[in-house]
């Protein structure tokens, strides 16, 4: 994997060598890094701190990180409210389905792109790449009508199919690139034994592509977990809403329950955070390869 983590550092040109007297430089660098970390981390720290406050303490003057009313009440409120738990359930169902289905469909397409030469291949390739640039807002209006016609409005299936349109191109491109790095002799060997291409794909290629599948899967999960515009438009009832919309609904209520919104935000980022911590190297490698090669 392109584990950013494991590669030895390569001098980047800002320092010509590592001479013995670089303590000054080191201190300056650490200071700059710390400043950057404050920029990145302070807002997140404030979110975490606010989720433990009483709502009346949110704008207390002067602001304090930890207030006398420190408690887990906001979390308890959310975790005991069936409506809000439903938001989480919906998000998990949709995001996991999108991930699994996108991977299956993408693996099939990637196999065709990687192992076959066929009429129209270049055109289809260009279509798959450029589809990614179609702005969601352009699709939104016809989707509204289309989903009603297909009886998929306000259903899981509607959201799942919609998200697949956005995740598939990336997944196909990534998996094609991945398969291209695997020697074709692998699947040729199985075919000589009389097995079909499906066997070669699922028995040989897929099992050795787990790292690629994980990075594409993580990325797909994130897109589905985070999506806002279509979740807002293609669902109507509270029991079909996902977490991002749930957060917006909290904001729309008569008074702002800031501590609950922050608690819900923390709970909402946990799956992504866990994915990131567990699969950090796949994550970074996959994302980077995608960004570079898309």
């Amino acid at each position, binding site marked *: *994997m392109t584990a*950013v*983590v494991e590669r030895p550092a*390569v001098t*980047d*040109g*800002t320092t*010509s060598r*590592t001479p013995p007297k670089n303590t000054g430089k080191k201190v300056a*660098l650490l200071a700059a890094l710390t400043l*950057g*970390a404050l920029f*990145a981390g302070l*807002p*997140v720290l404030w*979110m975490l701190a606010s989720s433990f406050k009483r709502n009346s303490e949110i704008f207390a003057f002067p*602001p304090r990180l930890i207030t006398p009313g420190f408690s887990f009440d906001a979390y308890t409120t959310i975790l005991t409210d069936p409506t809000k738990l439903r938001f989480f359930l919906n998000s998990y169902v949709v995001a996991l389905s999108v991930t699994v289905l996108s991977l299956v*469909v993408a693996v099939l*397409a990637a*196999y*065709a792109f990687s192992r076959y*030469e*066929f009429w129209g*291949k270049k055109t*289809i*390739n260009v279509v*798959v*790449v450029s589809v*990614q*640039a*179609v*702005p*969601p*807002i*352009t*699709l*939104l209006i*016809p*989707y509204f009508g*289309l989903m009603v016609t297909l009886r998929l409005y306000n259903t899981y299936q509607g959201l799942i199919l919609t998200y697949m*349109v956005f995740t598939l191109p990336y997944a196909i491109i990534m998996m094609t690139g*991945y398969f*291209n*790095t695997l020697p*074709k002799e692998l699947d040729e060997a199985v*075919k000589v034994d009389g097995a079909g291409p499906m066997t070669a794909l699922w028995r040989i290629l897929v099992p050795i592509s787990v790292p690629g599948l994980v990075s594409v899967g993580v990325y797909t999960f994130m897109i589905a977990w*985070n999506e*806002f*515009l279509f979740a807002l438009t293609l669902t109507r009832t509270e029991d079909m809403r996902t977490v991002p919309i749930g*957060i917006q609904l909290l*904001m729309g209520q008569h008074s702002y329950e*800031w501590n609950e919104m922050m608690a819900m935000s923390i709970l909402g*980022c946990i799956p992504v*955070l866990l994915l*990131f911590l567990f699969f950090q190297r*796949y994550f*970074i*490698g996959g994302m980077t390869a995608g*960004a570079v*090669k898309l």
Partner: protein
Amino acid sequence: MSQITRPPEDTPVLAAPVRVSEASGRGRSISRFKQRLTPYGFLTPTGVLLVILMVTPIIMVISYSLLDGVITNKNPAFVGFENYAEVLTNPVFFDAVRNTLVFTVSSVVVHFAIGLAFALMLNSPLLGDRIKGLFRVLYILPWLFTVAIVAVLWRLLLSPNGVVNYLLGAFGVTDGQTEWLASTSTALAAVTFINIWSGYPFFMISLLAGLQGIPRELYEAARVDGAGAFKQFRHVTLPQLRPIIISMALLDFIWTTQQFALIWMTTGGGPIAATEVLSTFTYKLAFTRYDFSVASAAAVLVLLMSMVLAFFYVRHQKARD
């Protein structure tokens, strides 16, 4: 080891042809025919999905844009380009174009600047891997939050009574009373800042991976030629990163022009269209004014603009391959 899981830099997106093993003996022509069809079989699920949910909606939105009163009216009348005329004579549309450009260009430029600065620091040979790992996780944090969360968080931080105003007031930078998201003079800058905060990690990570992929020999050669730190950066680092920078900038540009949730949840496009971007403008036409025909015309215009961007992106990728 990196070869195992990531396509090497020079692999084209879609690989060179790989010849399928020849069927031998009887049934050769049937088997050949089947073999020819096989790749299409593999592509069928993708094809069906893209035709139903990508091609069809694009045709639908184009036809909507030429009719009057679609969705709300049972028998919409054909009106030619009238809906386009309505969009193009609406001053808010041009506000939206301008805001989208300001928002996008500033975001991309600063994403690049911060991303590169952080990536260079995180790649410095002066520090150990542990400490760099710690900072890397901290720097990636903003990217782990969905836009809805980012929006709510910054509404809290930027509230008139919020902590940002408190700090700015305490240090005497401002009077500490600024209504960042509710004032026409600061709202666009504020949403742009929020977008910068949430989007730079993506740039940073790609550049970091790019930096780590630059062969050491290049720096050694430059040093032998007497190049100092700045010259090495100028003549080795930047040229080596160029393809990544261009790819990322184009991608970021495409994504940022599509941003909806962040603006919708922080300012809703206001105050008085100060942060109206193309996506919020179109959304409001459709789902607040229920004027789906005019909204479709706006959506088609947005599509056309995106296609121009996509053209450059595809051409750049092709050139790289």
